[in-house]
């Protein structure tokens, strides 16, 4: 099963790289948003209650990563839906591979893309003057949480595609990505969010992911925050993978 999943993961990566129009939104839009937020609201660090940071860019990097990772999940869903629409999915189902390797391949590719996304934003941040307060261990923690989160979102995207079966339906999820982001502590500290966003953010797993990614960047590693972030990320990954397998079974039952 692992071999089949790895082969399919490699194929997914190859096809993703050959379609820059799918890759670009994952990096370009979050980068632009990062620039706008940082350039437009950099004085927000003066607000009472804002955590002590080297610069607003350091604070915003986590938001950009979370946005990119979520869009990556939607991208994985669209790619899967296109395969279903085009009939390639049926070809895989008819082949002698463990069927669970089909979504797993796409999810594994999602993990690799997530690593690329996290590294990209870390590099971008460093180029434009960000500091990673926790150094190399901090970078590793950010990578770990980011990859787990990206894996989870890729899995959720695959689940959506298996249920919806059409790329345009999956694409319709885009606005929801921003809703989830806005009602979290991705962009602004939780206690400085307006009501009721602050209340929702307390229950939004993305808040813990964002805080977990942010902590090693803006300060030395705080065990609780980072562990909560990792737990949330792994929870999203586990839930996503589980739901995608259930969705696969449901689809195969209908066929």
């Amino acid at each position, binding site marked *: 099963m692992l071999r089949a999943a790895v082969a399919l993961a490699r194929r997914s990566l190859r096809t993703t790289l050959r379609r820059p*129009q799918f890759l*670009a*939104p994952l990096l*370009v*839009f979050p980068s*632009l948003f990062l*620039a*706008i*937020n*940082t*350039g*437009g*609201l*950099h*004085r*927000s660090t*003066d*607000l009472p209650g804002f955590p002590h940071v080297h610069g607003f860019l350091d604070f915003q990097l986590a938001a950009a990563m979370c946005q990119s990772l979520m869009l990556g999940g939607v991208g994985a869903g669209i790619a899967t839906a296109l395969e279903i629409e085009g009939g390639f999915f049926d070809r895989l189902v008819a082949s002698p591979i463990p069927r669970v390797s089909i979504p797993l391949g796409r999810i594994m590719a999602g993990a690799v893309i997530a690593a690329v996304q996290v590294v990209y934003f870390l590099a971008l941040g460093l180029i434009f003057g960000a500091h990673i307060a926790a150094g190399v261990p901090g970078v590793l923690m950010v990578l770990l949480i980011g990859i787990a989160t990206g894996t989870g979102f890729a899995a959720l995207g695959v689940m959506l595609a298996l249920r919806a079966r059409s790329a345009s339906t999956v694409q*319709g999820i*885009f*606005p929801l990505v*921003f*809703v989830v*982001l*806005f*009602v979290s502590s991705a*962009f*602004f500290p939780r206690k*400085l*969010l*307006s009501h*009721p*966003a602050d209340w929702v953010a307390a229950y939004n797993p993305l808040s813990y992911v964002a805080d977990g990614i942010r902590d090693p960047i803006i300060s030395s590693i705080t065990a609780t925050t980072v562990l909560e972030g990792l737990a949330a990320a792994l929870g999203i990954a586990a839930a996503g993978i589980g739901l995608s397998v259930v969705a696969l079974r449901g689809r195969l039952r209908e066929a």
Partner: protein
Amino acid sequence: MNQSFRVVVALSRRALNEILRVPGAAIPGILAPTIFLIGLSGAFGKAAQLPGFHASDFTTFIVPVSILQGAGFTGAATGVNLARDIEQGWFDRLLVCPAPRVTLLAGIVSSAALRSLLPASFVFIVALIMGVHWPGVDGLVIAFVLAMGLATVMAFWSTIIALRFRTQQAAPLMQVANFIAVLFTTSYAPKDLLASWLRTIASINPVTHVLDGARQGFVGAVTWHTTWQAVVSILGLQLVLGALAVRSLRRFGV
């Protein structure tokens, strides 16, 4: 002249058909700016407490941004529709009819201005519900007129992209221009509060004047000075991009 006008009206009616006959077609264009308005207000609302912020609250400050974003999104969708028409062969049908190219272009983009009123109105209503300051009739009319103008500008831009690439896959390129044009301005904060690099870009970006013009009624009084700068900026953008779009159309198929 009469015949050209009839062609423009006929093509506009066809373009409006999509939102009239496909119920969900208008939703993305309305939903996106609305989510941004509500989301950004929720996330960054406290930024309005910063000294130097010339608005009663952050939502009031960014309502014009959402109005313009929605208008720009609608304009960009014009290009996506044109790319689809090119892919499906419908555009060839327009090209072999005797109407002048300028008339065809006017027909393609004119509906964008009208369609932009839909997201603009929806965002404005949501903003009022959120407690935004009433901009006055003059402020509102100016905001809407500028939104329609920006929709046309984005329609020209996305038409150029559609004619160049001839595929709907170029849609992100059409949308990103709207994103950059509207947001790399005084979108989130007054100029004095922006980072120096963004302040420089905002000073050069003509859409900053358009945004200031759309915003003036919401944050204060409507002035002739701000209004004429906004109008000149939007007309200038329409002229430049319109000329480039006509040029692209004339070269199509050469």
